[in-house]
């Protein structure tokens, strides 16, 4: 799992960087209670994450907070005033948050403001991110499992679907955005304009001349 590898490599780096402060190096390994001390595993550092690893490691060593626990958590403030705590690795699936971390906009203990998304939607989005952390593993069984998860995940009511669309667009979570757009497209495939209006609960707002023009251009497609 990518989360495991990242954190391991982070800790290895801490040991390397703080080689003078023995107590720091000693404290960290025991805190990794369910991750084995495995050289080979940590050697496989995902290429794209090395910058963020270094930044995270720098953040940890600078502030000197070593007892944070094995996984770095991020705190996000949603639009409705609730704080959402999430693992850094999961949150980094959002390109917006990743860029904020990499640009060092948010310090270790700062709270990241997400002014457009509510806490409920945030936790939904992060549930998707967590499930898709290992994307690209290539295992067929995992891919099928993810596919059925996606199908269940996106079978929500229209309001939630809109929230997911807006949230994933704001946070730039490409996989979820594509999934949600595909769901909306599937909802209206093969439907007539009346049915589309009914599904989305929107009103026809053409003037009589516009309506005539629109009908002339598009009547070929539906009954």
């Amino acid at each position, binding site marked *: 799992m990518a989360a495991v590898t990242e954190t391991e490599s982070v800790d290895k780096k801490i040991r390397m960087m703080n080689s003078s402060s023995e107590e720091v190096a000693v404290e960290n390994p025991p805190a990794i209670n369910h991750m084995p001390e495995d050289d080979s595993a940590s050697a496989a550092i995902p290429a794209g994450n090395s910058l963020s690893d270094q930044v995270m490691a720098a953040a940890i060593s600078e502030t000197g907070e070593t007892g944070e626990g094995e996984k770095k958590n991020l705190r996000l403030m949603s639009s409705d005033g609730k704080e959402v705590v999430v693992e850094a690795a999961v949150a980094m699936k959002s390109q917006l948050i990743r860029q904020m971390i990499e640009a060092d906009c948010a310090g270790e203990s700062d709270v990241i403001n997400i002014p457009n998304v509510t806490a409920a939607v945030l936790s939904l989005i992060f549930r998707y991110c967590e499930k898709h952390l290992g994307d690209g593993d290539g295992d067929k069984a995992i891919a099928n499992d993810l596919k059925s998860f996606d199908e269940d995940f996106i079978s929500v009511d229209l309001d939630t679907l809109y929230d997911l669309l807006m949230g994933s667009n704001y946070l730039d979570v490409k996989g979820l955005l594509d999934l949600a*757009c595909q769901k909306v497209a599937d909802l*209206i495939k*093969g439907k007539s304009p009346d049915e*589309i209006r009914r599904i989305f*609960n*929107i009103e*026809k707002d053409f003037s009589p001349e516009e309506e005539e023009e*629109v009908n002339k*251009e*598009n009547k070929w497609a539906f009954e």
Partner: protein
Amino acid sequence: MLTDSPAITSSSLAAATTTTIEDLHPDVVTRTLRLLDGPTLAAACSATSQLRSLSTQSDLWLKLCLSTWPSLQHPRFLPLISASPRYFFSDAFRFPAFHANNALPVSEEAAALPGTLISAVDIYHRGVLIFSRFVETETSSSWFRGSPFLIDATDQMAEPLLPGVIISPGELMLSWILFDPAQGRAVNVSSRRAVAVERHWYTGETVVRFAGAAVSEGKVICAVVTCSEMTGQVQEVVLTAEDIDDVCVSGEEGLQVVRTVMEAGRNKWRGKAAEEEEAKERYLEYLRGKRRRKESRARREGAMDLCCTAIGVAVFLGFLALVVFR
């Protein structure tokens, strides 16, 4: 969903209580529209004015045209349709209209026959694109108009289309779009699905016909794919014209059929299966008509033969009688 109940309103204070598709960012809506097929996009265009303005972005329709007919990606073709890809799509996507009495209304101005015909051919085998060709044919020359109507899409084909895969002729889907750059009209003359598959044991070939979409005055434009049974590959892809009386159709007559079909209306889209069924029905009706005419012609000739024989016999008997009873 739109709701006025206070309980729901108060529970989601911070977020918008009633989001509609119009609250979504236009980029998100465009992203969704990009995933739609032609008829659904046209329906979305007719829903509201916001959807209309987003759906009529021409690059949406251009992408749709190019993904439906990959042969249009030719640099010669792109400028021709980029002016109005939506119009082109609605022209080329639908099947030509068919009139029961087999006489399509011809415009009064009697526009000149097309001087150039551009063909965009795409063949799919089991859903996979195997052949995509863009052919420009000069049709104003007397050589073309005097010879039998024929457009060949396999001129410089040297390699097999799908090496290693045996083509199953019944599972081919063909689209042949004829475009007249002067008039700016297009028509898809193929029935998409094969209407007839004939095995010719003597040449070792299988001939697959895609016809029935373009029928006019007893002539039908037919796309013909010839597969070799030995190699299992496609050998030839041509566009021909057939006549109900099996008379050869000249280039000029073929062009007239093309022009008539291009200018006649298009069928309202009733779904892929329904349209393909109808095209097949039309071709079978044409074949039935062909057979009927052949039989009636044979009967007529038989009657004629009988008459002549009877007259001949009568003359002979009369002569005999004359000689015997002189």
